[in-house]
């Protein structure tokens, strides 16, 4: 049974499916199939080894592996859908095979449930707002999904909103809210009037939002500022003067293309002046 299955898999993929473990950190291309650790034992020898208890053994040794962005489940294997580097994270505690994902660079955002994003209100219709989040469709935001929502304190067309998605899949229009599950705003809602909004790549946002990000700590030492990161690639920045705001915007945009040494240089120069 294993032999015909592996032959079919090879003909589909056009090349032998590789073990995910061996490809970690390397560039993978869309269309490649990856084998998870317990499967490669079965497929490796081509099924020549006798496995009297193969079905049961597989069932026991199956661990729950999480399929992250850029990967999709295809039968028993992982199918790569984006080009980039394959990454793996070990599970912190308990059982489970960890998370596999593909690190790729992208500027165009696709709504994902649970993401916190910055949106621009484009229209009011019925009792919902239409909010542009940079995806293919505008998200809908109900009038009542703000903390302390009243008729008076509604956002206007053109305002900036920080909220999270509750519905986001490829078949439906995304929906977002500005309260969390307890009903509290938790930092979400209408973003203030001044400040500058600019766009960066999604990879930079993830880097800046990582815990203990050096860039954010160094920027925080420069001057007092307010900053909001949206997972859709939008950053809102506000500092005391327009010049400071412009400097911050330029630094954050440039951080993408600088090595950490160059960055430290620039920050030290700024801190001196």
């Amino acid at each position: 049974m294993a032999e015909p299955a592996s032959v079919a898999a090879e003909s589909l993929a056009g090349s032998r499916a590789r073990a995910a473990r061996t490809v970690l950190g390397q560039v993978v291309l869309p269309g490649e199939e990856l084998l998870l650790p317990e499967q490669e034992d079965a497929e490796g020898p081509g099924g020549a080894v006798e496995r009297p208890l193969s079905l049961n053994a597989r069932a026991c040794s199956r661990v729950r592996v999480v399929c992250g962005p850029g990967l999709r489940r295809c039968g028993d294997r992982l199918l790569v859908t984006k080009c980039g580097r394959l990454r793996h994270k070990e599970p912190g505690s308990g059982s489970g095979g960890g998370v596999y994902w593909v690190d790729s660079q992208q500027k165009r955002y696709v709504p994902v449930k649970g993401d916190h994003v910055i949106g621009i209100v484009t229209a009011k219709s019925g009792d919902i707002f239409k909010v542009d989040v940079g995806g293919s469709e505008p998200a809908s935001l109900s009038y009542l999904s703000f903390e302390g929502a009243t008729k008076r304190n509604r956002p206007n067309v053109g305002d900036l909103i920080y909220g999270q998605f509750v519905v986001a899949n490829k078949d439906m229009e995304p929906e977002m809210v500005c309260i969390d599950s307890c009903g509290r705003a938790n930092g979400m809602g209408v973003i203030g009037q001044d400040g500058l909004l600019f766009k960066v790549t999604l990879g930079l946002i993830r880097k800046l939002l990582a815990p203990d990000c050096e860039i954010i700590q160094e920027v925080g030492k420069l001057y007092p500022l307010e900053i909001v990161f949206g997972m859709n690639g939008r950053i809102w920045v506000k500092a005391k003067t327009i010049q400071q705001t412009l400097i911050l915007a330029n630094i954050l945009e440039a951080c993408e293309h600088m090595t950490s040494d160059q960055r430290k240089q620039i920050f030290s120069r700024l801190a001196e002046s």
Partner: protein
Amino acid sequence: MKETPLSNCERRFLLRAIEEKKRLDGRQTYDYRNIRISFGTDYGCCIVELGKTRVLGQVSCELVSPKLNRATEGILFFNLELSQMAAPAFEPGRQSDLLVKLNRLMERCLRNSKCIDTESLCVVAGEKVWQIRVDLHLLNHDGNIIDAASIAAIVALCHFRRPDVSVQGDEVTLYTPEERDPVPLSIHHMPICVSFAFFQQGTYLLVDPNEREERVMDGLLVIAMNKHREICTIQSSGGIMLLKDQVLRCSKIAGVKVAEITELILKALENDQKVRKEGGKFGFAESIANQRITAFKMEKAPIDTSDVEEKAEEIIAEAEPPSEVVSTPVLWTPGTAQIGEGVENSWGDLEDSEKEDDEGGGDQAIILDGIKMDTGVEVSDIGSQELGFHHVGQTGLEFLTSDSEEEEMIILEPDKNPKKIRTQTTSAKQEKAPSKKPVKRRKKKRAAN
């Protein structure tokens, strides 16, 4: 796709920044972005990058019958296309207004100015003439398409070579490039468009607007000029009222900019010519850096404050200390005496000098307590003021130091923009002026006591 809407806070920020004469990328009001011209392997193919805006230009030729009423002239055909990769808002059938406007402007700029000698394109009068076709494709939209497109068109035309033709009696021989070298077109002059964006009903003006600046602008003035300062086309759109002297000023600025751009174009053409003659490698592949795969690079660091500190130290070291203070105590009433700055208020001098600055505009050197300031040194300005006041006396220092601490001046490019700094300095001084008044009042209270 629909265009991303401009939020209120962006619009407000941009307008406020323009009022303070600051642009998002740190340019001055009359500065162009970096222009980069690269050529392809074929003659007549070039890519022009104006900042991030990219236009590809390609020139081709064909032998056709001439128009009936112009039997001895060649035919010119211009076409500008907004590719869908330029911006998400460009869709195949959607951007018709902008497209028509740009095409019309290109035609007026290049055809009506007669920059190409169409008579030289005639082969056999009434039967065969050259039809020159210029195709421009916008590859990336980051504002100011028209300038980039006009530069691409004229560079492509200057770079193009058409096959050589010889006419002997009735016989017309068209030589292939292998038989005889192709011949360049005969171009009289190089018209280049310069765009001016106006804000707040014509109060503020920016050259070479960015894409975001274009979104908040009130109107646009395009002047097409050549290096001999001849205006080929002027177009004003957006419905703003422009004064006569504004238009004249814009034309002067355009003259300067066109001269610089023409020089750049000629240098690029010369470089390409040299490389081809020497047998070196040419083409688009050579002009792309192959160590990096990032398409967009930041060409320079946005902030360059490296030499401010040294300059500041220099100035402070060279500065004369302010005059010595009269230290004799002045007795006002029994039990109240004043030690310090002396009876007379020496800050009166400062106020006068400040007023002169405000009235005189930005071109005067700022003189403070006999110390001459260099243009690039705002930070030291405040620093020396602080020092000066320390020497002068102990009165009211708390006000001053706390004020100047809040006044953190950050200079974007100290060496390159003296104008910017002067406005900031005057604003700093204006903000300092109110701080002196409470101090004076304190003194008067003491006098009353």
